């Protein structure tokens, strides 16, 4: 569970993740706004591709697979992993038990 608590820790791309059930997503021109009703915090997704990734997390066996499905290249992966880590730190996305 290194992901949830340690800022700066690596993001585990290979496990299943999900959008937190208390998070609401509003698509915008620049990406999306996220609001967490539990923590009452607002976050921004600054690219439509990141929105695609976040939305498909719940159906993908891993975050890596969600990124692949969104059409991300290997070179783009580190930036997206960093963004997902930030989202995990603020509880916008949470680990999901494998099906």
């Amino acid at each position: 569970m290194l992901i949830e608590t340690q800022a700066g820790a690596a993001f585990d791309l290979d496990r299943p993740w999900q959008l937190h059930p208390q998070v609401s997503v509003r698509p915008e021109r620049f990406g999306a706004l996220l609001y967490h009703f539990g923590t009452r915090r607002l976050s921004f997704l600054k690219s439509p591709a990141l929105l695609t990734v976040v939305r498909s997390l719940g159906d993908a066996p891993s975050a890596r697979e969600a990124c692949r499905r969104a059409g991300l290249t290997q070179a783009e992966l580190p930036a997206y992993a960093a963004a997902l880590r930030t989202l995990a730190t603020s509880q916008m996305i949470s680990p999901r038990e494998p099906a």
Partner: protein
Amino acid sequence: MTQRGSPPALVEQFQYGLDAPICLTWELTYACNLSCVHCLSSSGRRDPRELTTAECRAVIDELERMQVFYVNIGGGEPTVRPDFWDLVDYATSHHVGVKFSTNGVKISPEIARRLAASDYVDVQISLDGATAEVNDAVRGAGSYATALRAMRNLARAGFRGFKISVVVTRQNVGQLDDFQAIADRFGGQLRLTRLRPSGRGADVWDELHPTGGQQRQLYDWLLARGEQVLTGDSFFHLAAYGDPLPGLNLCGAGRVVCLIDPVGDVYACPFAIHESFLAGNVRGPGGFAAVWRESELFARLRRPQTGGACRSCSAYDSCRGGCMAAKFFTGLPLDGPDPECVKGHGEHALAAVAGAPVPRPFGDHSHRNRPVPVTIGRRPDRACDENPLAGFRP
């Protein structure tokens, strides 16, 4: 790619406005049991034209369709509306979260338990002094005790993280650590906001707004606490000191926020209740969405701003000229410095307009027969206008 990634680009996006506000302030009634000297909306008496329960529900339906995540409900004292709790339930069951501001008068142990049970309601208790003496001078006799009783009830009901909302004044800026101690004691979170010369605040601003030295003290205090203390993004004019405070650091008026007042009028922001910032009314054709999307005023606010007299200032990219409402109600041009400009340009600008007429706040709902209980700042018109209990300490 989230909030911390590359903020400037996002701020650009927000400057040109969104299809729906991120959140908005909705004042449900002008009725209030108090008569705070700095009330932004000059509240006191109910307005007979206030939106009915059915009209309020229609607004909530629209907010749900527009995916507005939450509304900041205020007033007046919103909890004195008999349908208040029903409207809160209606909003949360329609995916519109509610954060409401109250002086605490209706927060009984039973209500506190009910609030603690909901994930979609947040409570903000107003407190403008860490002691009864400082608070009651601004908010009226007994208001400190009422607020603390509400906090105690919330804490006992297990409501964690409710907000304690403080308008920073010259008189309470020395109590910041004491406010934090009160928040810690009740498991609340501190929220500091800026005093605006709006509503009745116009009458007391000269004597209540923090001095230059106090602004610096406030900035240092806030910077040291980071995201621990909320500010509603209200001190972005202080970003000109150097590092920005947490938040968007942008005037969101008409771009990402707005105000719906008790009679359904939509203003650019809660601090700008004046016809110059009136965009329309939710009772008009197309409702709130049409006002938000089609108002000429909002279109104008979303166009790039020139910066005017501030353009040549090195700090302009940080403070962006400060607060529109603060400028307007002190008689300053909107494209010049904020009256509390940390570089001192506001003082020169104020001196330049001294003696000129200042726009008056719009729509006074103050109690007619109750003198506003001031002991700080305002001189009573006649000796008997002074509250006989002013200065009384039990």
